[in-house]
């Protein structure tokens, strides 16, 4: 297969004025390089989802032709789409990075966490994440969060401080001036870094097209057995059981996000390649999270509350 970044010595002619994707890419590379330049032990969150795949691609570009010098961390809910896990492992091998896994299942098995009554495990990821940060003494954690995803994320700095408890204080954030990032912190504190802050879902897809970035196949239309619940199409299996009167059927769907399989919904779609997905996203009337995440419907400030506790 082709390497993600080709030989730069094949010199091209002049380039036109930087466009939106060039600007977003350059900003992301700049952020990643600042963190690598100023911090000792960064780590990048990596789930195999599209935003984290794009972020890892950017990291590889930022440091090319040197390898990505930091490990990646997957906070594993145990409720995985099998093809996403496979993709995660192949990508880790492809980029030659070290993978750490913080497993929610381990925490459930030994009683450090209890299963929630609604079955979703997304909120349970915070504790294993914070423990992994402490254990490995990570001082910077790259996340693929985008400000357009959620109203609490919209308030986040690009380099965002977490106190020694891993907590975010949205009422007392540092000013962030120009592109001069302050990555300093006191002992025990760490920073969360969001290189994709200013990207929208559509920008991410256009960039995937431009760069020819591979994704898990479930981001494209495929036939799948699904059950409709609260307006969401869930995939029955180990974590989604058919209830009384519920019936599943085979539909043509794709996923807009991947997460805990028990609460991440598919959308009806016939978009089977990247261009078709771009057209679909450009015309959508519902947000990514609104369409696919049952847990974000929990309450008005569900994301803010989780983020304050240290969620990504």
């Amino acid at each position, binding site marked *: 297969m082709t*390497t993600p970044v080709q*030989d*730069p010595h094949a*010199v*091209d*002619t002049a*380039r036109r004025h930087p*466009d*939106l*994707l*060039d*600007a*977003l*890419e*350059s900003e992301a*590379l700049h952020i990643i*390089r*600042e963190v690598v*330049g100023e911090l000792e032990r960064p780590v990048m969150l990596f789930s195999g989802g599209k935003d984290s*795949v794009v972020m890892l691609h950017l990291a590889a570009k930022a*440091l*090319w*032709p*040197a*390898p990505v*010098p930091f490990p990646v961390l997957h906070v594993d809910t145990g409720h995985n789409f099998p093809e996403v896990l496979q*993709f995660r492992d192949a990508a880790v*091998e492809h980029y*030659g*990075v*070290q993978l750490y896994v913080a497993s929610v299942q381990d925490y459930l098995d030994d009683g450090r966490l209890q299963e929630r009554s609604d079955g979703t495990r997304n909120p349970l990821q915070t504790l294993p994440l914070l423990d992994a940060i402490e254990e490995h003494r990570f001082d910077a954690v790259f996340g693929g969060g985008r*400000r357009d995803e959620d*109203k*609490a994320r*919209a308030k986040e700095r690009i380099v965002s401080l977490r106190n020694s408890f891993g907590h975010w204080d*949205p*009422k007392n954030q540092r*000013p962030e*001036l*120009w592109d*001069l990032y*302050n990555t300093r912190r*006191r002992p025990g504190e760490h920073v969360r870094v969001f290189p994709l802050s*200013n990207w*929208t879902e559509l920008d991410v897809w*256009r960039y*995937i097209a*431009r*760069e*020819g970035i*591979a*994704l898990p196949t479930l981001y494209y239309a495929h036939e799948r057995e699904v059950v409709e619940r609260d307006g969401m199409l869930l995939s029955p299996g180990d974590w989604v059981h058919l209830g009384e009167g519920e019936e599943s059927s085979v539909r043509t769907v794709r996923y807009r996000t991947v997460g805990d399989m028990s609460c991440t919904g598919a959308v009806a779609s016939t978009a089977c390649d*990247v261009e078709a997905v771009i057209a679909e996203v450009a015309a959508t*009337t519902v*947000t990514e999270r*609104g*369409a696919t995440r049952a847990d974000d419907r929990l309450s*008005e*400030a569900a994301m*803010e509350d989780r983020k304050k506790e240290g969620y990504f």
Partner: protein
Amino acid sequence: MSTTTMSTEQTGAGTASTTGPARTGPTTGTATDGTAAGPVTPTLLRLATAGSVDDGKSTLIGRLLHDTKSVLADQLAAVEDASRRRGWTGELADLALLTDGLRAEREQGITIDVAYRYFATAERSYVLADTPGHVQYTRNTVTGASTADVVVVLVDARNGVVEQTRRHLAVAALLRVPHVVVALNKIDLVEDPQRVHEQVAADLADVARALSGAVPPVVPLSALRGDNVVHASEETPWYAGPTLLALLESLPPARDLQHDGFRMPVQLVIRPQHGARDATHVDYRGYAGLITSGTVEVGDRVTIAGSGRATTVAGIDLDRSGVQRAEAGLSVTLRLSEDVDVSRGDLLAAGDVPSPSDSFSAVLCWLSERPLRAGSRVLIKHGTRTVQARVTAVRDRLDISTLEHEPADQAELNDLVRVDLDLAQALPVEAYLTSRTGGAFIVIDPQDATTLAAGMVDDPERP
């Protein structure tokens, strides 16, 4: 700061695998004619709001998003629902809730920190930063304005130009935000909006004169009802100017306030050595950074500001292939033909290369609750270098009500002061007036690591 060497402590597979993720679809990269292939994406305009508390900044951003059909159905439903629960009886919904997303903001009905929202027209893509009006949160307004191409300053038609309006206009002028537009809001609440419009325009002309800046255009509008935001209003037949959106769409792309000399602060030295995934890169050595001004071409002579040594650009690596030429705004990696001593923190420059200075004067926008006094020891981050510094003197501060400089010996929260600085290590600073990037720095507290101030170099060579 020392040279960053890419470590080789990778434990994963060392070579590209054949079972790795396959590429989807054709590669649409940089085409052979040098233009990016694929659908042309519009350029970026970064907008920040400013103005006094309750002037309607958040409502205006919400209205702009709503009337350009940029609010998706589930977001609107959530905002309608939240509005109803908070006793909203007006039509539509409280559109301020589209940006006031924090629990505390919704409880208090104010903005506390910047919210970023995005929308695109056929003309351009917008990043909207909705900032707070409360004096207490001015640091967040400065955060939003520091990266803005345009600041929209709101004025409540009932109150006219007030202290916070002047403060924000002064901040925008100091930061040299390329464009300032005034939104005269809540015209639905005044008897004679035309007279108010004239009065506000006259007051703004006075402010502009005091700040020696251009007089901003004033758009009379109602964020609440949508008059003159996206759709022209029938209530203002006396106003012949454009709607706010039309005005934004027509702004020339961020008027370049930079000189065009090439500048690139070095972020990293990229040296894969034996960690190279491709044996041909074992001897690779490149200097990674963001070009902050000017352009660079293969074959150009560039100088390492500081040592003053010159070298030649042997290659520019960007994107998937090398390029012949790259311009400001792009993150690149430069290869240099001579073996020179360059590390993170150095500045590569061409043209009128700035000479390093360890003593300069600057304007600070003081953003901390702890006052600044002469003698304070601080850290300064400029480009990619952080050095120790001492504030040797606080000279004067800007009186916001008169816009005159008055003598001062300390700076308090939100003060705009002129100071003298001595540095432990010289920096290649430039006057902010000639370069928004070469003249900008941040002030950091060496003890608790907080960001204390935004700094703009006034005179790089203080006698």
